[in-house]
């Protein structure tokens, strides 16, 4: 991902794009992802964005199972899943 201004944080447009991609088929996921972005969106790192992309590629039920703690994530995305679980 190309970072234009501050190399550490996302610009508004990138954040808006991520926010739209967090629109899901299950309300549970919508609510958790919205809460997470409201709290942490402005300070997301490139690494977190990559993890989020991986998680968003999952089906709605897989994603909710992870957030609800019904199953455990791969090590590569665990830090973000942990954040979503407390969002």
């Amino acid at each position, binding site marked *: 991902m190309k970072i234009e201004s501050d190399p550490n944080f996302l610009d508004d447009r990138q954040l808006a794009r991520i926010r*739209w991609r967090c*629109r899901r*088929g299950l*309300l549970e996921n*919508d609510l958790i992802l919205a809460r997470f972005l409201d709290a942490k969106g402005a300070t997301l790192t490139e690494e977190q964005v990559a993890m989020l992309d991986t998680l968003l590629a999952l089906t709605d039920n897989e994603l909710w199972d992870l957030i609800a703690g019904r199953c455990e994530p791969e090590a590569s995305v665990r830090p973000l899943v942990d954040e979503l679980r407390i969002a």
Partner: protein
Amino acid sequence: MAKSFPVMHFDAVIVGAGGAGMRASLQLAEAGLSVAVLSKVFPTRSHTVAAQGGIGASLGNMSEDSWLWHMYDTIKGSDWLGDQDAIEYMCKTAADVVYELEHFGMPFDRNDDGTLYQRPFGGHSANFGQKPVQRACAVADRTGHALLHTLYQRNVRARTQFLVEWMALDLIRDADGDVVGVTALEMETGEAMILHAKATILATGGAGRIFAASTNAFINTGDGLGMVARAGLPLEDMEMWQFHPTGVAGAGILITEAVRGEGGILLNANGERFMERYAPNLKDLASRDVVSRSMDQEIKEGRGCGPHKDYVLLKLDHLGPDVIIKRLPSIREISIKFANADPIKEPIPVVPTIHYMMGGIPTNVHGQVVAPKDGDPNSVVPGLFAVGECACVSVHGANRLGTNSLLDLIVFGRATGNFIVSENLKAAPHKPLPGDAAEASRARLARIDNATSGESVSAVADTLRKTLQAHCGVFRNQGLLSEGGPRAARDAHLDQRSQQDVQHRARRGARAR
């Protein structure tokens, strides 16, 4: 911005990639038509994924069943207000469409003998209401999810063209009033296009998010209904909404009926088990509509809980931690996450919550959109179709029977596809686009692009949702509605904003005559 938009041509354009849109597109793509399916989110993230219960079909795999009994249950469930010809067609066709899905590879639950398993469901009866019957075909509690993935994969195989993260803007109607396509925005680039089509199918789902308390995902904003209304066509039965009695207050997440089945009870602010007054026999297990109305009555009469007295409590702690942890684990999860309450220790705040829209864009059984014209109340709007929750066929009347939502999607998605195939569109030329095809969309986009000040969309939407909740909720009467209508219009600033749209329509109407 350019005066007009670039044009793409298709035989059929479908707006929405949920179960209904993808069932229709599959029928068209397999018949060799060029089909574009627009979706503002990735197709398998449509709200169809949230349907858990199953698909009702009188296969009779568990015990004797008949489409006539299914028809009776559907009509009775609709409060006798459904279209009985359409219901007959749906219930008669149900077995065929379910077997078709099985052949598409949908992984239905099965019996030991290999036939499809069918589970019991509220309102499903044998012999015209005499005894319960098992009629719901399911894939565990993820039937909608399995349906969506099955249809998406079949569509990829059939070479349906998906336009993902595209937002449809407006219907394009020519001087005869025929629909010849849509304008749409590719969200990634912000580029607007005209999608020129011989058939345009709206499959945009319900509009549950127009209410403050809704079980629907954020995407269920009723975009197709807005497109139809802006094109000057009426909607049908928009007062008919199904409420689920127990949505988590402030979040909307469903708490399943099973909780009350296990012994959960509803309390008002005085700690009174109020359902004993409204339904002395069934109490908290009375039907959805009775429980919703009772809860609303308690709140309206000032016995709601919390600082705003706007919810009641669902108490479970008397069941004991063992029962809750063993039998209702996901409910505990939801309650802790979305109500900040552990039901082992404290009750869950709940309110009657919007769940399903029975009304919508009026259609016949072929999915053709109909509107009053020259004295004919059901005159077909050539070129325009609608399927799924956004459409009103109307098979649900005033109240949808459980498991009939997925059935509606696949029966009428397929029927609409078949009808369009039978019209032999492949050979027919496109009807020409009117000269001002993109004008309404262009003007609207330009206004938004050039706006330097104004209100935030989400703030306006929040006010509108609260007004709808207060004035068009569980109870609707003349006083509330008469007050709420103008208030909603004010919230949305319709009086100012619609000015140019009205003028635009008037010009178009004058030409049509």
